[in-house]
């Protein structure tokens, strides 16, 4: 058995184990959510809110679009229902950093995110 085949077999084994654990986890997770949702809209701020994550780091634009920063705050209809737990990510227009370690995989081709 070659190395790649061994890796695949090991991955399938781990997959089986995780599938069993996740099946239980998803049932419990959905149950908790349903209890929360069923109580009323007032629970909205008890349910996990939209949560920010460290985000876009590098950028390039090949279009005729123009960029402009926006950030006025007039208060929103839902602001009382949401309180993100994470600060907004820092912006950076620097080029993508070089691989940090020789063990890291090289960056893959871009994946497109657009409307569907």
């Amino acid at each position, binding site marked *: 058995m070659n190395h790649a085949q061994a890796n*695949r077999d090991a*991955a*399938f084994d*781990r*997959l089986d184990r*995780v*599938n069993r654990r*996740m099946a239980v986890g998803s*049932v419990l*997770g*959905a149950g908790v*959510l*349903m209890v*929360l*949702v069923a109580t*009323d809209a007032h629970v909205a701020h008890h*349910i996990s*809110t*939209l*949560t*920010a*994550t460290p*985000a876009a*780091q*590098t*950028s*390039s*634009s*090949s*279009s005729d*679009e*123009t*960029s*402009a920063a*926006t950030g006025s*705050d*007039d208060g929103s*209809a839902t*602001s009382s*229902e*949401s309180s993100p737990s*994470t600060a907004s*990510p820092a*912006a*950076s227009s620097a080029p*993508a*950093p*070089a691989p*940090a370690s020789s063990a890291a*995989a*090289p*960056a*893959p*081709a*871009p994946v*497109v*995110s*657009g*409307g*569907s």
Partner: protein
Amino acid sequence: MSASAPTISAPARVEWTAIGTTAVLVVCDPAVLEPARVLLASELDRIDRAASSYRADSELTALNARAGATVSVSAALAEAIATACQAAAISGGLVDPTLSADPGWRGITLTDWSVRLPSGMRLDLGASAKALCADRAARRIAAATGVGVLVSLGGDIAVAGPAPAGGWLIHVTDDHRAGPEAPGQRVTICEGGLATSSTTVRPGPDGHGHHIIDPRRGTPADVHWRTVSVTAATCVDANTAATAAIVLGPDAPAWLAAQGLSARLVHADGSVATVGGWPEGDPMPAWKPEAESLS
């Protein structure tokens, strides 16, 4: 026998059509591509059987046909409905699986493993279910393989596990079917999700306008922004916020900022606004397939 240098694996990618859209799977180690593909396929099948509005034999179709009655549902459909209700709650009803504000998502009764819709109500779980599937699949693949993974379902992206060097490179544009050379912007994320909603891709129910409904009036939202991309801790959150931003129109930047989310909004005239630290679109050399030269 001589020792060889550690191998740097090039990411492996597979793409196919599923649940009426494009599924893209990228893993950092080609050795796990096949088990990862099997897992993603199983998640797609799971959500399709449970929550598809287009399948006559889906659980959701049966539930919609029995509005007014209490119906037992599977864990998959219960989770999809709960996720959609959560999205509605978080967005203040701007994203509503009933596509209506009266009674809207609050009319749904979820009790243990049963659901009751008010008579006449129909659910459309399309957007949130797709994002939920991406989140679930990415988490499960990363947990099973220990390898970094990206799952894109119709341009709604979830990543999990160790990201590749420099992060996952994503090209945001109007239409997920466009190539990476389409007008837009390249960004990287290392965790969570990124989703894009656009009014330019799909027509509305009557063949006119677009498909993003403003639940407050039950008709397509006004086109202030043609495309909104958002990053968040999960693909579901990103998808919810992107759609809510389209519905909100001019109030979207303030709302997104209040959520602490990072977003890129393309105005109907093509001008771009950014929120929450989304990077400016400084020019960068075109992407080159470095992976090929290293493999």
